[in-house]
Every structure is written in structure tokens, then in C-alpha cells.
């Protein structure tokens, strides 16, 4: 009797050392331009080869500008070098590359799944902490550093200790205007930014089962914001329906056999977890972060908390610091906080469903005066689909910018970034100090909530405009 985490893990153990250190086989490896150059360089220096190039996908995403002229011009020479280095490394090793002129280019965690690369039961790694996204398919997927990228390139394996196992059960159903993003923010607020450290987390329960693959990816994506090693949702008919016919998914000759196998990937009822949590999804209201850690999340109906009310002096100190950085005063209603910028995008919330729900709120409305708002589709394919559905028109008519795919304003590495002191309603995943640009202030929220903020010019409860 075992959890799905253990079932998939055990299938991938090549050999195990005493103390539970496992040599884990890597099925899928995604690389982007920021965390891979040093790994490829080290392979060259040691005379080693990429062991299974066709198990890899290379995609530029962090550095790419999202402006229409990016194929002609990238201002930053360092970004150009990283993009060119990825191109050369992929070519030299024989790795498939979705380059900037390819419709499939996009954020690695958006385009990978969209092309069917991530299947139930796989192990998938990438030099990026948000690789946890891919666990939505019932995969063991986790972020690694560059040394491990090098190790996986050379050996198709990684040394990993077994994770502790946690199950988080979300009972009930999410209400109108409440999305997967609100669910995961509420979970992180509950267990804390370090609550998942050392754990693999399975998300279960009615509210999770009711989510689309896009919603499940949003939840698994932010597992790392609770410190979790990876997140996972057991595959079901939703998963199979999403995958069928995707380019890299098994074709008709293998499909039925694969699905039969995938149906065995679930946690046995008495699979014993090291830790269990539950949350009532029906009681969750739209969430907004006020501070500089993803755990600083509150219902939008709340007020900025008062450090004086906290018993632990160290927490008080951290709260004071966060409030100073965010330029907020205790007791201020969250819905009284004005915003300068709105960012709808990132590996958390730039999939087609995110854009559809955002468009339902944007339709027939206008971005408030003085607010700059942008929508950045997660991939060229998402962009194309959205345009086929007329979502781009809705956003453009409302006054949003409609940009080219990439990580964009999530992380302050490309031209899209906040200026010091600017305040942003953002659908991304991290509100760390300086994350979206030095001195920038981030309020994390769902795509629907971000549109509501854009329209009102301040943080708003989207349920009031639905």
C-alpha cells in the first residue's frame, strides 16, 4: 500500500544507497537559457556528452523581451549572449529547441505540458523551481540547480533522498470568482512559506478534482512557495482528455496501454502520509498578498495586519520590515490600496483558461486612468488560441497591452519590470523584495482579481463585479 508519490518514485529508482539516497532516473528534462549555460560548459570541459538528447526540450523564456520587435532587436547584450548560448548548446547536443520564432516558444512550464511532454508517472526536472507545476499530471517534477542540470544531462539520473509525504485535501467546491490561485494562496497562508520543506505534497479532494489541468498546474506551481519539493495531483479523466492528441503524448498504438497504467497511479486509501492537512474550499474568498512572502496572503475583504498584535517578536520584526518595504499601514483595507501596474502572466497564470477567466471580467470594461496593464500569454500556442477566441480584442479594447510570450514581469530579468516604488497587481508567484524589479511592490492575486484591480485602479473584490 503506497501513496502515488511513492509509487512513481519507486518505479524510477536505478539503485539505492544506504540511508535512502536514490539514484533516480530522469524521463524528461527541460532547459532554459539562464540556468543551463554553466552546465553545458562543464560538460565540454570534462569531455562528457548529453546522454539522451531527445528526452530534452530547450526553450528561451526568462530573458526574452515580450515586445513585437524582439526578433530584430534585443537591447541587452548579456541577454542576447544567453539566448545565443542556449541555441548553440541545443544545436551542438541535438536537443529540440523551441526558439523565439517558433509558435511553441513560451514559458517552459507552459509549453512543455501543452506539447504533451509531461505524462502521468514521469519524472521531470528543470533548472527552475517552478518545475513543480508539472506535477499536475501525476508526475514527480522538481526544480534543480545547475550542478544537477549538468548531472542529469550527463547521466539521465539524479541522486535524491526520498521526500516526506504530505497530503492536502481541499473539500467542497470553490465559489464564483474564486480560482485555483486563491486556493493555493490560502494553503500557503495556512502552512507557511516553509511548511512544505522536505515534503512532496499530493493535492486531493473534491475541489482539486474539480479543477481543469490549468488549475491543477497553478496549484502545483506554487508548491515551491510553501517550500515543498514537489506537488502532485493524481491523474484522472481530466488528465487523459487533456493529453490525448498532444504532439509528444503516446499515439494510438500506445495510448490504451498507457492509460491502463496511468489508472494505477493513485494513493491507496491506507497510504500513510507523514502529514495531512485539509482546507474547506467552499469558505475561501479571493486572496491578495500584502507582504513580501507568499505566505502573507489574506482574504481581499481583510485589512493590512498589525505587527503589534503578533506574539512572536521575530515575526513582528519581519512584518514591520515587510510593511515598510510595501509602504503600507496596519488597518488599511486591502481594497483601499491603489495600484500602478497590472501583470497577467507567468508560469502560474498564463494559460488559456487564465486568459479566458480574466477576459470575462475585462469584457466591456476599461483599465483605470494612470494604470498600465499587460497580458502576457504563456506561450505562442496560448496566444494563438486566445486570438482565435477573440480574447486579445477584449483585452486591447479594455486598454491592456497584449504581448509576446515569456516570463516577462514575473522576475525582473527582461525589459518588463517595475520601477522603484511602483505597486503591481500580479498573477505571478513571488512577492519577494525586488522580485519584479528593484524597489517594486507586488500583490499576488488571481487573473480575475488582477483585472478587477486594473479596472478599479486599486485592489478590488472581483465578486462585486461578476
Amino acid at each position, binding site marked *: 500500500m503506497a501513496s502515488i508519490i511513492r509509487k512513481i518514485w519507486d*518505479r524510477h529508482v*536505478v539503485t539505492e*544507497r*544506504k*540511508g535512502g*539516497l536514490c*539514484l533516480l*532516473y530522469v524521463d524528461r528534462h527541460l532547459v532554459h537559457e*539562464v*540556468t543551463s549555460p*554553466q552546465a553545458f560548459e*562543464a560538460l565540454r570541459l*570534462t569531455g562528457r556528452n548529453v546522454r539522451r538528447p531527445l*528526452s530534452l526540450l530547450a526553450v528561451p523564456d*526568462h*530573458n526574452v523581451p515580450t515586445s513585437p520587435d524582439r526578433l530584430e532587436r534585443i537591447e*541587452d547584450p*548579456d541577454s542576447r*549572449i*544567453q539566448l545565443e548560448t542556449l541555441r548553440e548548446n541545443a544545436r551542438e547536443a541535438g536537443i*529540440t529547441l523551441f526558439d523565439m520564432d517558433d509558435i511553441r516558444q513560451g514559458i517552459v512550464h507552459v509549453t512543455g505540458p501543452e506539447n504533451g*511532454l509531461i*505524462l502521468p*508517472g514521469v519524472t521531470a526536472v528543470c533548472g*527552475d*523551481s517552478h518545475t513543480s507545476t508539472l506535477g499536475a499530471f501525476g508526475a514527480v517534477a*522538481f*526544480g534543480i*540547480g*545547475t*550542478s544537477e542540470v549538468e*548531472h542529469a544531462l*550527463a*547521466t*539521465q*539520473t539524479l*541522486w535524491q*533522498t526520498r521526500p516526506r509525504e504530505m497530503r492536502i485535501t481541499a473539500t467542497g467546491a470553490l465559489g464564483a470568482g474564486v480560482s485555483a490561485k486563491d486556493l493555493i494562496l490560502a494553503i500557503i497562508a495556512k502552512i507557511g512559506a*516553509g511548511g512544505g*520543506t*522536505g515534503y512532496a505534497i499530493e493535492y486531493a479532494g473534491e475541489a482539486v478534482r474539480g479543477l481543469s489541468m490549468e488549475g491543477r498546474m497553478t496549484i502545483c506551481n506554487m508548491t*515551491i512557495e510553501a*517550500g515543498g519539493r514537489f506537488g502532485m495531483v493524481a491523474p484522472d479523466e481530466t488528465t487523459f482528455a487533456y493529453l490525448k492528441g498532444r504532439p*509528444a*503524448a*503516446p499515439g494510438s498504438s*500506445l495510448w490504451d496501454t*498507457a492509460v491502463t*497504467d496511468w489508472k494505477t497511479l493513485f494513493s491507496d486509501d491506507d497510504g500513510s502520509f507523514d502529514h495531512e492537512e485539509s482546507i474547506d474550499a467552499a469558505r475561501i474568498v479571493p486572496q491578495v498578498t500584502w507582504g513580501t512572502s507568499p505566505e502573507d496572503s489574506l482574504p481581499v475583504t481583510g485589512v493590512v495586519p498589525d505587527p503589534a498584535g503578533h506574539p512572536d517578536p*521575530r515575526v513582528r520584526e*519581519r512584518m514591520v520590515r515587510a510593511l515598510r518595504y510595501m509602504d503600507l499601514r496596519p488597518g488599511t483595507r486591502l481594497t483601499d490600496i491603489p495600484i500602478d501596474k497590472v501583470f497577467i502572466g507567468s508560469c502560474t497564470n498564463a494559460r488559456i483558461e487564465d486568459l479566458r477567466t480574466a477576459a470575462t471580467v475585462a469584457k466591456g470594461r476599461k483599465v483605470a486612468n494612470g494604470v498600465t496593464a499587460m497580458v502576457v500569454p504563456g506561450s505562442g500556442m496560448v496566444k494563438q488560441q486566445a486570438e482565435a477566441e477573440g480574447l486579445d480584442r477584449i483585452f486591447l479594447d479594455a486598454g491592456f497591452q497584449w504581448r509576446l510570450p515569456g516570463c516577462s514581469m514575473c*522576475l*525582473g*530579468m527582461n525589459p518588463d519590470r517595475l520601477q522603484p516604488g511602483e505597486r503591481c497587481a500580479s498573477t505571478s508567484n*513571488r512577492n*519577494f*523584495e*525586488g*522580485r519584479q524589479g*528593484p524597489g517594486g511592490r507586488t500583490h499576488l492575486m488571481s487573473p480575475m482579481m488582477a483585472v478587477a484591480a486594473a479596472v478599479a485602479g486599486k485592489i478590488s473584490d472581483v465578486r462585486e463585479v461578476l
Partner: protein
Amino acid sequence: MIEKFVSLKAVGVPLDRGNVDTDAIIPARFLKTIKRTGLGEGLFYAWRFDERGEEVPEFVLNNTPYRGGKILVTGENFGCGSSREHAVWSLMDYGIRVVIAPSFGDIFYSNGLKNGLLPVRIGPAEVRELLSQVQEAPGSTISVDLAAQTVTGPDGKVYPFDIGSFPKECLLKGLDEIALTLEHEGEIERYERGGKTKTPWLFLDI
């Protein structure tokens, strides 16, 4: 490429904050490099320097005797967030070889071990004892002995810590982990042959 670590006695640098994320350790704009070297100048950039690039006098590393310190003592969940190994490279490039904390982001912890930056996990109360000592007596030293798996505080109190036996050996001897793994080539090949028969869809080419 692992840098050997055996033991170290150095000034303890107190950074009394929890959840120090890797964006704080090294902001994203410093990641536009294809090298591992030279990242020390970006270390804790937004805390060390102001908007004009001047040192922030209150920040611990800008003060004697902490400047250029080698042993950092800090709060829980150090290195959370992004997987960027640049965080470890920047700490090491600056000269830091040991970080002592109650807990670490998992990826950061692993990245540290792969490079020769020793992450030492000891209890929150023990970390507090060390923090207050190095705060109250600036310049007081901490000793770290990897073979013995101990930290010795300025007052001589010894704190044992856990570390996996394999990473410990790699650190002590400066071993090339990939070369060690390649000794398992036969087992990897056997795994692949079995997998291609049992679950061929996992071996489809991209």
C-alpha cells in the same frame, strides 16, 4: 564542481532574518551570465547597496569585523524560492563557506552541497544562541568541523549536526559526483532496457 570542505574557524556573521530568499541573495538581473564566477558583487545587492550603489551602513556585511565573513548564521528557510545556483556561487565568490540555519530551502541546500558551501542545520534555539553571541561580541568566532559534524560556538559549546554520508564524503574529498554516478552506467542501461519494454511511452523522443 565541488570545492573541498573539511573544517573552518572564522568570524560568525549574524543575519537575523527568516525566509531569506534567493532573489534577496542574488537579484535576477545578475543572472545574465554564462559563467559561475564574479557573482560576489551581486550578493545581497539590495541590502548591501542603496539606489546610488553606495554601501548601506546598517547592513551587517558592510561593518567590521563582519565584512568578508565566511560563516553566516541566519534564520529559518534560508535560500527559499528560486533554484538559481547563482545564490550559492555568489555567497562563495564573496567568501562565505558555511551557512548555519534552522532550515533551508531544499534546492538551495542541495546546491550548496554540490559546490562546497556547507549548509548546517541545527535547532532554532541553538541558532538563536549562536546569533546572540556573535551579535553581542562582534568578531567572535565559530568553528565548523565536517568530519566530526560539529559546530563550536564562541563560548565553546558544541552543537552536532546531521548531513548525509554521501554528500559528506564528496565534500570532505572534493569528489566529482558525475564520475561516481557513471560507475553505475551498467545499472542505468539495465533500467532503460526494462523501461522501454514496460513503459515505452516514457521513452518517446521529443
